[in-house]
């Protein structure tokens, strides 16, 4: 267990993350949300939510803006403790345990501008005490595998929006956690780059399967990338409908999203979204 007992009492009241073996995931974990409720101030934001996701499953969460999607993701990631109910990532129940099993990719890429792309991607390894050279080597393998070779020394400011998101995703992947929490990862990109990135992410997840919870406001994105999509209502967030996607993460996105089956599911999702936002 890596426990830093000499840490001073801190302003933000962080829980120290529990230990996690460095390197590979080693195990897969599902996500199970039972009777989840959450409040923000006096406001009920999430109410009686139940969701199950098997290991290596990809769950999409869509809902009207401000419905608490991002809060749900932070709860899953262990950044917050829920007011009611429980969230388990495999056997991890407390927020500290969840934090150790889940890597979080925020909406904006949050790449550190003073670090090279490779060092940004290797952050989790460095945090676990790996030396710079070893961390770079380990992250470098993923750069090769995911089409980022040659961009290792680039500073984030030198990268395009799509490239930055790729590095940010690799940073999440390199953390070697069984569960990934992605918060609208492609929201800031233009439509063409977004479609490219969805295809890229689908490929990355085929090559390196993880349990993923993906929050997005883009129904098509959710249905293309996820096995199942939970449509949430306006605040307080409740489950309106859970949709199962027939063939997720197809290699050819353009074809996949125009197939009649896909169009039918999208129609249902949009209807559910409508129902939920009233």
């Amino acid at each position, binding site marked *: 267990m890596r426990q830093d007992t000499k840490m001073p009492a801190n302003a933000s009241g*962080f829980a120290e993350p529990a230990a996690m073996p460095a390197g590979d995931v080693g195990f897969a974990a599902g996500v199970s949300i039972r009777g989840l409720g959450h409040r923000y101030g006096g406001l009920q934001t999430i109410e009686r939510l139940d969701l199950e996701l098997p290991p290596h499953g990809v769950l999409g969460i869509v809902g009207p803006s401000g419905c608490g999607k991002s809060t749900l993701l932070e709860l899953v990631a262990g950044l917050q403790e829920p007011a009611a109910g429980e969230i388990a990532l495999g056997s991890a129940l407390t927020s500290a345990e969840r934090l150790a099993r889940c890597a979080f990719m925020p909406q904006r890429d949050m790449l550190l501008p003073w670090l090279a792309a490779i060092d940004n991607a290797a952050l989790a390894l460095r*945090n676990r005490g790996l030396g710079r050279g070893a961390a770079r080597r380990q992250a470098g393998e993923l750069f090769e595998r995911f089409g980022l070779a040659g961009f290792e020394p680039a500073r984030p400011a030198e990268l395009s929006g799509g490239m930055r998101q790729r590095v940010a995703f690799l940073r999440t992947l390199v953390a070697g956690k069984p569960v990934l929490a992605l918060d609208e990862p492609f929201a800031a990109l233009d439509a063409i780059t977004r479609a490219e990135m969805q295809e890229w992410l689908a490929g990355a997840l085929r090559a390196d399967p993880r349990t993923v919870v993906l929050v997005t406001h883009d129904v098509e994105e959710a249905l293309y990338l996820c096995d199942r999509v939970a449509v949430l209502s306006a605040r307080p967030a409740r489950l309106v409908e859970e949709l199962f996607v027939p063939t997720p993460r197809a290699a050819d996105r353009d074809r996949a999203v125009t197939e009649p089956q896909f169009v039918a599911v999208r129609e249902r999702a949009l209807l559910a979204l409508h129902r939920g936002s009233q």
Partner: protein
Amino acid sequence: MKRWLLPTLLLTALIGAWQVAASTDALADLLGLAPFLVPSPAEIAEALWESRSLLAENAWVTLQEMLLGLACALVAGVGFAVAMRLSEALRLAFYPLLVASQAVPILVIAPILVVWLGFGIWPKAAIVALVCFFPIAVSVLAGLRSVDPEATKMMRTLDASRRQILWRVEAPTAVPHFFTGLRLAVAIAPIAAVFGEWVGADSGLGHQILQDNAQLATARLFAAAIVLAALAIALVGLTALAERRVVTWR
């Protein structure tokens, strides 16, 4: 080049006007002073050249006081800022004291410092440190606090400890703020050092200014002031240079 052109032109014009006004005694008449009290730029330049070894000796003394004081202010300012960032209780407890320390007139503290620390370099360095501590501490604290909460969340899910978040995210975020504070501190350090010398010293530019003032050696008085200004400009320039070398991501 263009950046230097306008200030240089303006400065030349001002010095030229001053030279004409002083050498024709027009300036002295205007100010109602005896002509020998109003040196012309040429006379100041002459004093600068003739007293060059004296000025250099005294400038070295003052520079040492400034550097020692700045070094103390740097260590204490950054240390306080980090401590106040790590502990909300410390921040709430110390921030008002920090502000109060700036409100206390140096005039009140300086004689005590001389009695306590003697006539050497230390009381002057202490005054410089006291004055320069505040801008550094305040700007570094503001920088540490300006970190994006999303970045902190991201780091927490990447297994970062509080100390690692401080070192890998908050500290680099605060570096440009630190340099802003340092520049302010460096710019006021000469005034603080000179003031420290006025309370009790046997060398230094402030000491020399007092003596020249008493002896009505106004040309050399102005020469000392010019040397002091040059020191300040050189230090601010060095700070800007260091900032450009360190902050390469902006």
